[in-house]
């Protein structure tokens, strides 16, 4: 199965990993994986969610210990007991969730864990040093700014700066583009190219094929903990080929979508304003509407107000101004219960901390929105046998894999838990559903299942609002897409065809970085980027 291209005699190995094994309880995350990185290359590590990419790289970064296998840096075998050892060997990892302390300054974050300065933090002196390193690699950030004041893109630069300041030669970037807008991605690629030009090597973890072909010199692919390709030159490989290596079969790039039949408006959001948890404005006059029998997408870079939007709609966050209207009834700043009673379903972003009660059973979790009415409830008491019957029916109908319905849901896999949540929400026969990032962190099979359930909702005549950061997902499911940027709507585009065309993606990309649709139409696509 493994395709190995004979090493081209261009550059020495910066890193070699041979036969790496790492297991977690119940999962073999890396099964004798080989990986090699040459000096001065950008090497993509491709694989689906859960394929073991991050685990392999966490081993290389010293965060996990491998159970078998060896690591060589510049030809010499090394043993990493902690990330500190890895950093000493010149390997630095930039995690998907930034490892930055929000309440501290850029310089403080850069200096964390170093030996110099030894005791007294003479910050002004070090602000200058940090700024100088930033200058050299074209990473502009104010060293005195606190992390929480910075945008996601800037925070990513701080992470790079942190590693470069330590003299890292090998930079591992875990899904670096997931949090960036298309134009920011270009900026990141420029930075990576300039670093490679200065002799650094980059490992680029991704599950997005087009990015890999755009930036990487060579590609390695992991599938279910096994390397299915090692060091393939990315120029020769086609997307179909890589996709097959990644998924194990040919991928259907688009979902079958029947022509829509939108009915009356079920949800209307009018000019809403709301603050985020820090008390800063997150939504500034956002409006949208959803009709019965259609899926409406909301696209945007993470942190532009998507979470707050869904919370305001579900009445889990106060809205300072504006209106939310469901089936021509205002539910602005009502309690959550009001929406539930008026036929709203909500699949929250965080299935572990909002969507479910981890230590309660599957039964207790599926009755969350039904425990107030018969047959579950009679005169203030619960009929537990009716509740269990419902749970067993849903387990059957939604293919929830669990030994029995009294199992606490914390023991369920992400995909199964999401099925529990969807089963609960859909079985309430909603006329409107908000789904936020419903497929995040799921494997391909589970993602397809979720997509099919959302499409079924559309066909049964419910309105669905799908908020996602995956553009492909939005384009393949939605009938219309709104783009949100800094809490404002940049406009609305129709998504008609099965295969989204390039100019549409480009338009949405521009909107995601803050260009309103009407401006794009005035100036014409391409004028700005």
């Amino acid at each position, binding site marked *: 199965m493994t395709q190995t291209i004979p090493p081209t005699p261009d550059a020495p190995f910066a890193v070699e990993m041979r036969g790496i*094994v790492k*297991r*977690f*309880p*119940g*999962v073999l*995350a890396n099964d004798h994986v080989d990986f090699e990185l040459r000096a001065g290359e950008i090497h993509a590590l491709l694989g689906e969610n859960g394929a073991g990419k991050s685990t392999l790289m966490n081993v290389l970064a010293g965060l*996990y*210990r491998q*159970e*078998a296998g060896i690591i060589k840096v510049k030809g010499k075998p090394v043993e990493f007991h902690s990330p500190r050892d890895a950093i000493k060997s010149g390997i630095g990892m930039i995690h998907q969730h930034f490892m930055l302390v929000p309440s501290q300054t850029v310089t403080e974050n850069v200096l964390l864990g170093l030996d110099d300065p030894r005791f007294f933090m003479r910050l002004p002196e070090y602000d200058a040093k940090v700024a100088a390193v930033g200058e050299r690699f074209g990473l502009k950030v104010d060293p005195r700014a606190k992390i929480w004041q910075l945008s996601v893109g800037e925070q990513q630069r701080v992470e790079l700066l942190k590693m470069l300041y330590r003299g890292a030669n090998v930079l591992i970037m875990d899904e670096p583009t997931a949090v960036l807008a298309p134009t920011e991605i270009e900026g990141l690629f420029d930075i990576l190219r300039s670093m490679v030009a200065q002799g650094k090597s980059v490992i680029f973890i991704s599950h997005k094929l087009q990015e890999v072909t755009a930036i990487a010199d060579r590609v390695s692919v992991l599938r279910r903990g096994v390397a299915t390709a090692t060091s393939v030159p990315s120029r020769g490989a086609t997307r179909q080929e890589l996709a097959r290596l990644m998924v194990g079969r040919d991928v259907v790039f688009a979902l079958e979508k029947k022509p829509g039949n939108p009915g009356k408006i079920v949800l209307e959001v009018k000019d809403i304003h709301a603050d985020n948890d820090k008390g800063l404005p997150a939504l500034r006059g956002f409006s949208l509407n959803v009709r019965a029998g259609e899926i409406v997408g909301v696209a945007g870079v993470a942190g532009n107000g998507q979470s707050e939007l869904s919370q305001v709609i*579900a009445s*889990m966050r106060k809205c300072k101004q504006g209106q939310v209207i469901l089936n021509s009834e205002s539910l602005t700043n009502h*309690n*959550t*219960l*009001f*929406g*539930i*009673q008026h036929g709203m379903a*909500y699949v*929250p972003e*965080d299935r572990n*901390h*909002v*969507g*479910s*009660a*981890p*230590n*309660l059973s599957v039964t*207790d979790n599926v*009755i*969350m*929105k039904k*425990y*107030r009415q018969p047959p579950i*409830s009679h005169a*203030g*008491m*619960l009929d*537990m046998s009716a509740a269990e019957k419902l749970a067993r029916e849903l387990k059957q109908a939604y293919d929830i894999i669990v*030994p029995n319905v*009294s*199992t*606490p849901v914390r*023991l369920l896999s992400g995909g199964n838990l999401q099925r529990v949540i969807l089963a609960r929400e859909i079985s309430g026969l909603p006329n409107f559903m908000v789904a936020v990032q419903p497929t995040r962190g799921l494997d391909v099979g589970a993602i397809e299942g979720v997509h099919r359930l959302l499409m079924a909702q559309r066909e049964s005549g419910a309105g669905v609002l799908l908020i996602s950061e995956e553009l492909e997902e939005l384009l393949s499911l939605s009938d219309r897409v709104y783009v949100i940027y800094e809490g404002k709507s940049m406009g609305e585009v129709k998504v008609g065809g099965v295969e989204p065309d390039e100019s549409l993606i480009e338009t949405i990309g521009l909107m995601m970085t803050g260009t309103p649709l009407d401006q794009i139409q005035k100036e014409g696509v391409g004028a700005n980027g």
Partner: protein
Amino acid sequence: MAESTSLQKKRSGYKIRVEPRLDVPPAWYPLLVSLGAIVFALFLGGILISFAGGDPIRSYQHIAKASFGDIGVLSDTIVKATPILLVALACSVAFRMKLWNIGAEGQFIMGAFGASAIVLAPVLSEETPRWLYLTVMALAGMGMGAIWGFIPGYLKAKLNVNEIISTLMLNYIAVAWVNFWIFGVWSEGGFQMSPKFPNVAWLPRLAEYAKEIPIFRGLTTHAGLLIGIVAAIILWLIVYRSRWGYEIRLIGDNAQAAKYAGINITSNIIYVMMLSGALAGLGGMSEVSGVVHRLQTAPIAAGYGFTGIIVAWLAKLNPLVIVVVSVLFGALILAGREIQPSGVPKMIQGIILVSLIASDFLLRYRVRIVRADAEE
């Protein structure tokens, strides 16, 4: 995915491997772990007792004999267990919602005060039928306890004030409050105690029925036990079989999810704190009316509130299990009065709680010993 190697310790060719449990352990397993924790705690306590110059084996023998030796001491044990039972029920319902009400002690004292006020004010004449008199006392006790639970509940719900500290501070305030009344207003001959209650204010004791059932002669077990058991059953039904109980469990496990399910958390915090306070207050009523028969600080501020916390935890917050566990702790306290040094029962309670919390680890993780070189 949690890191499994973080707790690995190398030990001559073998290593201890700790991994999160991915399944539900069989029903007997938690019981075994809890029992193991208690045995371990008693063993550790024994070491400390002998360190302080006592004889652990004799101490434990004494506890067993002095609390279960014959029907007379068994009855005394149950008398001691009654306030613990009600207080533990109070703690359990609050803990279920992750409300750390450690003010059951104060709510218990205020309950005792409320019930006593009916007698001492006096609110009712001594001619009132006994059942009515006692019912009013119980309601007054529950009411005062509920008020004492409402204050921290309100502060927590509306102002986000840490309930651990506020409930604890209210304990001290409750003691001073009762002291004021028994010293300044209801003092009997300048002592810090009220006059003795009339018989109508006494909860019936088994000894009262000795004429019909001779074996009850001299037994001090009073109707408070019955109140406690009924309360436990009702509480069990509330928690596991009612809509409100479902809401309490949901909030306790994940407040965000409860909010998402449309449950009003703010008002539930206040209601549950009031329920908790009322149960503790009922315990206070049962103690003054069933045992002390007067209002006096020392016997009612005897740390039942704290023992209740441990009992609730040991019973894993299950009201029916609490009934059984309170009897064991009643024994410990009863026998403990005569053990030297006098801090022993308190210390053993502390050690038991510590080992119990530590033992929970075994419910969440699987600990295995494997060969160090094994790659599985």
